[in-house]
């Protein structure tokens, strides 16, 4: 797992969901962070798209279930 991408994703989530950085781990998800609702999920998708310069398809946005899958998907899209 790319550490730089992981750190940037964790920072984004920490800022958006207003939780301390230490509490954001690779298994963080809407189930573990209460402020991660559907609206923040949309804001997260847009921030990720803007920050990493890529576009998620509607199917992909549904797959962004936790920090780990988010980072892996970004790696895949950037590597391709």
């Amino acid at each position, binding site marked *: 797992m790319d550490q730089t991408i992981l750190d940037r994703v964790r920072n984004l989530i920490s*800022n958006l969901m207003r939780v301390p950085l230490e509490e954001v781990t690779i298994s963080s998800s809407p189930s573990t962070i209460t402020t991660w609702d*559907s*609206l923040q999920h*949309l*804001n997260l998708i*847009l*921030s990720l*798209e*803007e*920050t990493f310069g890529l576009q998620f*398809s*509607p199917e992909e*946005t*549904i797959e962004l279930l936790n920090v780990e899958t988010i980072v892996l998907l970004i790696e895949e899209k950037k590597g391709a």
Partner: protein
Amino acid sequence: MRVNILPEPIFQSLAAGLCNRGMLVENKVTPQDLIEKKIGDGEWAQAHSSLKDIWRQTSTQSNAGWISAIYQRLRPHLALSPVRLAILRSFTLEPALPLLQAETLTSGIDITVQVGDFNAYVQEILNPSSNLYQFSPTIVILAVQTRDVAPELWSEFSDLSAENIQDVINRALDTFRACVKSFRANSQAHLIIHALEQPAAPSRGIFDAQIAASQTNAIQEINRNLREIAAAYKSVYILDYDALIARHGRARWVDEGKWLSVRMPISADCLIHLVREWMRYLLPLTGKTAKVLVVDLDNTLWGGVIGEDGINGVKIGVEYPGNAYRALQRAILDLYQRGVVLAICSKNNIQDALEVFEKHPNMLLRQNHFAAMRINWQDKARNLREIAAELNVGIDALAFLDDNPAERALVREALPEVKIIDLPKDSARFSSALRESPVFENLSLSAEDSERSRYYAENRQRKELESSAESIEDFYYSLQMDVEIEPASAETFTRVAQLTQKTNQFNLTTRRYSEQQISEFATSPSNLVYAVRARDRFGDNGLVGVTILNFADNFCEIDVLLLSCRVIGRTIETAMLAYIMEIARSKDAKYLRGWFLPTAKNAPASEFYSTQGFRLIQQNDAGFLWEIGLTDKQITSPKWINLVRGK
């Protein structure tokens, strides 16, 4: 990674400043650091100005976050204009809100936003105790789309018969009508309605453009009627959403994927354009538009430098490259017609510059379009301050148009409140840059507005006459003033009310009245309302004065006596008083009295009654009551004024 957000020259000078204080660590200074430094030094206005620049250059979600956060600390030190903004909507637009926060804060507006429940806008408007009205908004935006308001016209159009089409149109309009009526009954807030947009691909393809019963026509018919509905109420405005989308490209604007998955139809990178379109409404509604456009001359109004190229060398005309400058002059002339006052600020010998205006056949703008000029070799910031003082406007009422980025940067730094028009390098794009600027947007246009720039320009000629007259009386005579005083009527109630609301300097009692109240005074048996028009040899100033008289027992009391600052200092107020005395005598009053209620701004009127020979009969915390016997003294209208008594 060093992110270059500030223009390089500015960044270098700021970085140099930091370097001296040992704060610059190579490649690690962020824009945030520079702002923090200004805040630390208590330079609030500079921090505000820099934040505005940073936001202007890079309007991203990530910048929006930290910029808005900084304003939490800046807020107590800046005079931001508060707005309670309610957004009612039929689609997801929350991601636009952080962008709107940054855009409004950097523009000096402090919004408290409430977003309505998804697609519940009709219920919220019709229910008098809904969250919408509980929130007490001052401005409401109704952001809807064709596919939500008239879904049959959007995706099912080919199923519809001609009759069905009309039914759908009527139902959509009935809903709009009911909503606007209910809204106005429950709130006095400004209402901005998104008009409906066209689909990217009409349901019958190119055939749609060949027939009358087309999808395009149906949507346009709704919009035409929507405009009429809005016009029937005060403070209801239309936002041409289709034109906005077209400006940025229909293909680029719509994100079908996000619409299907999260009901957000606008692509993420177009959200800022929606926000900026909303700003075009918020700026005039909060009084943050420019009243004056100050223009440079060389390479702005014409190609080349008059001092070097001479009158035959400068480029202005119908051939390239002069036609780019002529197009810019045309855009400036359009602003003049809308009531924007024009001024010149140029580094030139004045004779060289004026020769172009006087002699060049291809100029669209002439000297008489300009209300003030500073054509000299002193620095532009000082000139701009002088122009603002001469025109009696705040420095924040000025917009500045100059092709030279260094001059623009200098003015930006020295006078952060001035609105700078960013001209691109390419002169071919000058006129569109000016036309697209949001700082001149206006939601109303009265006859007074269109005449305003002319009044100011004529005033410059009056001032020149005054400075050359031998005595003040000679000056008054040479003006050839006509003053017409007539009873206020339905045609003039609006302007009369406006004058009571806006006039501050020559205003004896500063009583503010609405149109409704003026109308009541005018029809009441114990009151009289007069409107005063002034004309002189330079032009017509329009309706510039008001007096409201109250009759009781044998007293005539002057409830209101005011004169617009445009025409102070020409003895018109003496003519008004002479007329008031005639009227009072004709109503068998024995005494004429009037209060002077001092305010921070009406010192110009403080000596009026005493110099006219009135006696002070009462004094209290509020002010001074003056009186004169109508048989005691004759106040006559000045000889240099032609006083016309209207019917």
